[in-house]
């Protein structure tokens, strides 16, 4: 089972629909400062149901919607779709591909879809349970996590173990 592609529309610095094809093996993502690399990680975290806005570098969830540039107006909705290849039949579905979609409107309304059918976040997390797919600390590692894990002051280390157990 592996991630097949990520589709971003209206999410942070992706006003137009962008498809990021994902392949097995090791993929390096490179580019200048501020061009959008970490935003891709944020998009994956978000579509997997992340609710902590601080982990998306915002102060409110609305901030993940494309808010315009010098030349473009802000958009009213952000949508990210993750397509997972179900080649080992691990996911409880007869489809060979599973699509998870999350949408957020400026009104605050949000939607989740499984294979384009509206559902609840609960349905998605239940399907992914025990697959290892999720916004786990050990699946998405960022530079500032090093200090958090080694510090005695935060609960991050504790939390790591609880996620694995």
């Amino acid at each position, binding site marked *: *089972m*592996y*991630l097949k592609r990520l589709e971003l529309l209206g999410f*942070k*610095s*992706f*006003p*137009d629909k*962008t498809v*990021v*094809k*994902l*392949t*097995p*093996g*090791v*993929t*390096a*993502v*490179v*580019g*200048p400062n*501020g*061009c*959008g*690399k*970490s935003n*891709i*990680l944020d998009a*994956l975290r978000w579509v997997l149901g992340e609710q902590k806005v601080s982990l998306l570098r915002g102060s409110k969830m609305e901030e993940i919607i494309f808010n*315009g*540039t*010098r*030349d*473009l107006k802000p958009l009213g909705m952000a949508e990210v779709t993750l397509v997972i290849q179900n080649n080992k039949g691990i996911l409880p579905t007869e489809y060979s591909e599973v699509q998870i979609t999350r949408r957020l409107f400026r009104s605050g309304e949000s939607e989740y879809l499984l294979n384009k059918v509206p559902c609840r976040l609960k349905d998605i997390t239940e399907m992914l349970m025990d*697959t*290892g*797919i*999720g916004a*786990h*600390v*050990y*699946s*998405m*590692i*960022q*530079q500032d996590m*090093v*200090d958090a*894990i*080694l510090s*005695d002051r935060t609960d991050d*280390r*504790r939390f*790591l*173990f*609880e*996620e*694995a*157990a």
Partner: protein
Amino acid sequence: AKNLFLSTFEEVRKNFQQVFEELFTGGQADIRLLSEDDPLESPIEIIARPRGKKLLSITQMSGGERALTAISLLFAIYLVKPSPFCILDEIDAPLDDANIHRFLKIIKNFSDQTQFIIITHNKITMEASDNLYGITMEQPGITKVVSVRFQEDVQEGVVDTSLDR
């Protein structure tokens, strides 16, 4: 729950000792529950001693040694329940060349069962990857994704991380 946590802890502990020894080409490391009779609430202590050096507190270790220690712990936990994907955002930034090679070797070993996406500015990491995505912002504020090298079509060339010159 307590027994599940304790057995997971033991497994992480063995993995941690192994991964640390590989990344540090020697030395020793351990993790301990500070209060053994209350594992679910107990703080977790990290002990690390690079090869040939005397035991020092985690705070006295160098920036790169701390990063490698945190990475060892994260991989130790990952090994308990490998996730199908793992995204690393500039984790190689504090590492010297030799440590980047060791870090990439471990990732290669895990890459048959896990898709790795490594955001990086480092040339060694770029060279070692199977696939390469270049991210740019030709129009300010708008991210563009370009596939620079895919496993099927290995091209040689100089990759300039500052694609905006």
